[in-house]
């Protein structure tokens, strides 16, 4: 299993292959298709992320000290973005996520293609990932 840093680099490299934003979006859309369906028990308002124009559900489970994320969205591009985050962060420990440098997002070249409301949605997803990590980290240390 790859490490968190390896997965981040892998995604950065994939996006770096394309100059054209349309190809970048196609890549995002491809990720949306690979996201496993979200368990129905997570598809309720508790797991909805606020601050997104489209609906995004994000859930997390802790297994053997590692966090696994599960997500879905009714919009394809949002779903692709959250799928990439799920891929990157699943399998990391809460501490790895909390200590991670989130500026890698800027290297993907997403933000320059997102309007402010949409960038807010992305920030809300990242924040939620950190919140889960923080919650699991606190639980473990109790």
């Amino acid at each position: 299993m790859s490490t968190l840093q390896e997965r981040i680099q892998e995604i950065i490299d994939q996006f770096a292959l394309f100059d054209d934003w349309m190809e970048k979006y196609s890549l995002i859309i491809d990720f949306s298709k690979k996201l496993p369906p979200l368990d129905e028990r997570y598809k309720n308002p508790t797991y909805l992320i606020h601050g997104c124009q489209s609906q995004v559900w994000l859930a997390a489970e802790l297994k053997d000290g590692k966090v696994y994320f599960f997500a879905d969205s009714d919009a394809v591009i949002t779903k692709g973005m959250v799928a990439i985050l799920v891929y990157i962060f699943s399998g990391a420990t809460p501490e790895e996520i909390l200590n991670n440098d989130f500026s890698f997002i800027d290297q993907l070249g997403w933000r320059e293609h997102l309007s402010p409301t949409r960038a807010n949605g992305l920030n809300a997803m990242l924040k939620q990932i950190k919140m889960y990590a923080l919650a699991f980290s606190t639980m473990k240390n109790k």
Partner: protein
Amino acid sequence: MSWKKEFPIFDHLVQQHKSIVYLDNAATTHKPFSVIEREKWYYTEWNSNIHRANHHLAQVSTELFEDTREAVRAFIHANKREEIIFTRGTTESLNLLATSVLSLFSPGDNIILTWLEHHSNIVPWQVQAKLRGIEIRVAPISDEGFVEVEQLKELIDEKTRLISLTHVSNVLGTVQPIQEIVQFAHQHGILVAVDGAQAIAHLPVNVSELDCDFYAFSAHKMYGPTGVGVLYGKEKWLEMMPPYQYGGEMIDKVSFEETTYNELPYKFEAGTPNIAGVVAFKEAILFVQQLFEAGVVSHEEELLTFAFEELNQFPELIIYGTRSTKKRTSVISFNHPNMHAYDVGLLLDKMGVAVRTGHHCAQPLSKRLKADTGTVRLSLACYNEKEDILHFVEAFKKVQNMLL
């Protein structure tokens, strides 16, 4: 006829190598040279505060400000300049109205809204009605996008005081039968307020003919500056209504025990207004008057018809509201059953086509249309041409290829 050359933003975008097809005019329109120049001219040559000071700059500023009031009066065919109140926009006009007029009603009274309304014509009423024990009733609409007048009539009883509804739906573009509703309402002593935000640049508005009691609109949706709006009200009602905000020009005499208020229209214009914006707004009014004389209504109707014809190549699209271009102006909202409006809007934007996606500040209407995730909205203005529609169609085909 092309009005595009009057709008410097298009040349600017070309110079920046950004070709933007702007189809989000229902949100705000671009501004012509005349409006931009006028605002700059005012700040450069006349800037000062209005009404109170006796010096020359203030006198000229006051005259310019009041000139616009007269221009608005003539433009919407109001009887008196006292009936024209300047606000920050339609939303503030409706907040002013809801706060002030509902204070004249009693607990147990009711008012009527419709399923078409923009949040700005729902929430101010809702908040004030709750405070005052006034009931809100909601008139149903047809699938075509029109208020069901017969059903609206059934909602009325002896406690009904006011109906507030939109002139043109900001989601569907459908033109509502204001005159018919006003006639019926007045037979029962009921006031009618009209949200004209989406109508004002697209069809000639005559408040005397409509005979509505109130009419609200924004300058920025009719080629004027942002932060300027109008509330028209019949003088007899405005006289009865208490002020909405306090301080500045709206005051007559003040002691710490009591204050008396200035007369109309100043009673409703607290604080220093957007003077430069109001001065420049006059140019927007002149511009729209010229547009109407030059046949902008039929230009936009032709474009709308052309857009509907072009959209026919996508038979699976759900297009909301009537397709009769005689009964709607400037707006088309649609959805594709297998594409989220958000995805469509994002990808169109990447291809230089600016549209609006989402609920367009009318969530109850989205619900009524069964468009829970919102719609994609194209909205036209004078400077749009058939080639803008064709650009949109080409871009939309690419979006389909990516998403389906």
